[in-house]
């Protein structure tokens, strides 16, 4: 089969996603057209605990999975037996949460006689760019940054991913969450810091930009996080008033400088012409603006998904699954969740 879009414009794929705290399903036509995109978010439930509680997330998934999948099908006006494939996230993510989607998708495919293909969650995030940018074709470079992941990936072709850089410690979104908690903004940290930072001075406090010796493109955010915590402690000891907006803005600037700086260095070194961002952190307004400016300076085309496709969703899984299906990838009835699945790893799929 070919990944040529015009030859596969009627391909129908159901995407199912349950790797963290969103139960989501979507129907994709012709690899890129979103016919439905249903997301049940549990964020209000987890906010009480200051982060995602795996057992509560898993319980939420099993309660909502049928309703979410049924609604995705009915909004798309598609029956189960019309589907060419069912794509499901099998990693990385929370194992108990992943298992609900995996067990459901496999049984649905088995009962309806539809093939199932296991999809890598991060590859799904990258593929969200195909939805918003219909003309986008590989090769391109992509920064994926979210609460659990920070990777710089070279997409050399459909289904072909090469990791250029990764975080050595905290994910970017994790640092946002931790700093937001420390300055009393609460969970989830990303949007709250983004908002608070608009009122603050990004140059008020000089927080460090870490470099990793072994791989100049790799990220490290734990030093930045510690610097913020140390700053807060020292203010408290001295009895100085903390300007939350300035801390948020200065922290965000440091994080964005690191993400953009390393990304642009790699893109320039490799002669990249198209650069995309993906994942929850990609909806951060300051990050988007910085990438726009820096890509513009270098004559690199900058791409990003709409915010609704930056958060965890079934559409991105349906898109990644559509291409994986066309490339001949399938999963067996024994597909298992792989919580630490790497980008480009094909542990739960085989080629037909």
């Amino acid at each position, binding site marked *: 089969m070919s990944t040529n879009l015009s030859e596969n414009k009627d391909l129908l794929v159901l995407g199912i996603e349950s790797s963290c705290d969103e139960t989501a399903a979507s129907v994709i036509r012709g690899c890129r057209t979103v016919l439905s995109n249903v997301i049940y978010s549990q964020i209000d439930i987890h906010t009480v605990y200051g982060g995602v*509680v795996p057992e509560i997330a898993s319980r939420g998934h099993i309660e909502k*999975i*049928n309703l979410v999948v049924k609604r995705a099908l009915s909004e798309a006006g598609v029956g189960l037996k019309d589907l060419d494939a069912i794509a499901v996230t099998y990693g990385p993510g929370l194992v108990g949460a992943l298992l609900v989607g995996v*067990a459901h*998708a496999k*049984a*649905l495919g088995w009962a309806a006689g539809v093939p199932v293909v296991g999809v890598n969650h991060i590859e799904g995030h990258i593929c969200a760019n195909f939805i918003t940018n219909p003309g986008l074709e590989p090769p391109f470079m992509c920064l994926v940054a979210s609460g659990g992941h920070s990777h710089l990936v070279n997409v050399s072709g459909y289904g072909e991913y090469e990791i250029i850089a990764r975080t050595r410690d905290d994910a970017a979104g994790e640092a946002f969450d931790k700093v937001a908690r420390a300055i009393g903004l609460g969970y989830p940290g990303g949007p709250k810091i983004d908002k608070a930072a608009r009122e603050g001075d990004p140059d008020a406090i000089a927080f460090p930009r870490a470099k990793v010796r072994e791989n100049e493109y790799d990220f490290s955010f734990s030093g930045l996080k510690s610097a913020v915590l140390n700053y807060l402690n020292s203010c408290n000891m001295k009895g100085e008033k903390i300007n939350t907006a300035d801390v948020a803005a200065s922290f965000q600037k440091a994080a964005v400088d690191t993400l953009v700086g390393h990304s642009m260095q790699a893109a320039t070194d490799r002669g990249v012409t198209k650069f995309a961002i993906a994942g929850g952190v990609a909806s951060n307004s300051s990050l988007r603006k910085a990438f726009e400016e820096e890509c513009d300076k270098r004559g690199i085309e900058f791409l990003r998904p709409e915010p609704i496709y930056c958060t965890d969703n079934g559409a991105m899984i349906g898109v990644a699954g559509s291409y994986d299906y066309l490339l001949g990838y399938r999963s067996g009835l024994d597909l298992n969740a792989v919580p630490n699945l790497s980008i480009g790893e094909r542990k739960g799929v085989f080629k037909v």
Partner: protein
Amino acid sequence: MKILALDSSGLVASCAVLEKKENGEEKILALCSTDFKKTHSQTLLPMIDHICEQTDSKAEDFDAVAVAAGPGSFTGLRIGSATAKAIAMAAGIPIIEVPTLLGLAYNFRCEKRLVCPMMDARRNQVYSALYGFEEGKTVIYKDQSALALDEMTEFINSLGNEVVFLGDGVDAYKDEIAGRVKVPYVLAPAHLNRQNAASVAVLASEMYEEGRTVNADDHSPEYLRVSQAEREGAKDFNLT
């Protein structure tokens, strides 16, 4: 009437196909169980596929999917529930939520002694219940719950009747049972002391006749326990 029954509540993954003829005659057409190293995610659906192939059954041939709905391993329960919900959704049929411990006790459905199924619930507790099967009727002496072993053994001692123990909790607490149970008792042999989807299917068939089915969309396992975060969070956040 045909039922597909699943049990992945404990260490065993088990599935069975039950057929009931119009004259009331019941038959287990196929049964498959595994208790080995692989996870339920890797074994349950391949076994379902196998028994359905052996019995020429397709998803839409079933009148209901029965699932051991708890208590049990949280993840194990959800693998069974997600599988059942998807098959029931695709086939447009209801789910029969079989209480795990009564399903397990049905291994001894014609037993005259009392039957005490017991699963290791960790944190010094067992999931247990006490049933009697008198003249074909089930008598619930103690409904399934998460409780300390002592609570169950004291209750058994207070009744004074002979008891059959079964389940993985018996393996975990064999010595404690020997020390605390003052009535005559026996431990189930290996072929009867674990979850078995054929027993789940027989109980499910009775429930189906009584109209005790649920919409697949609404089904969720009965965990009998809140999550650790809710337990500890309840203290922190004054939620209780």
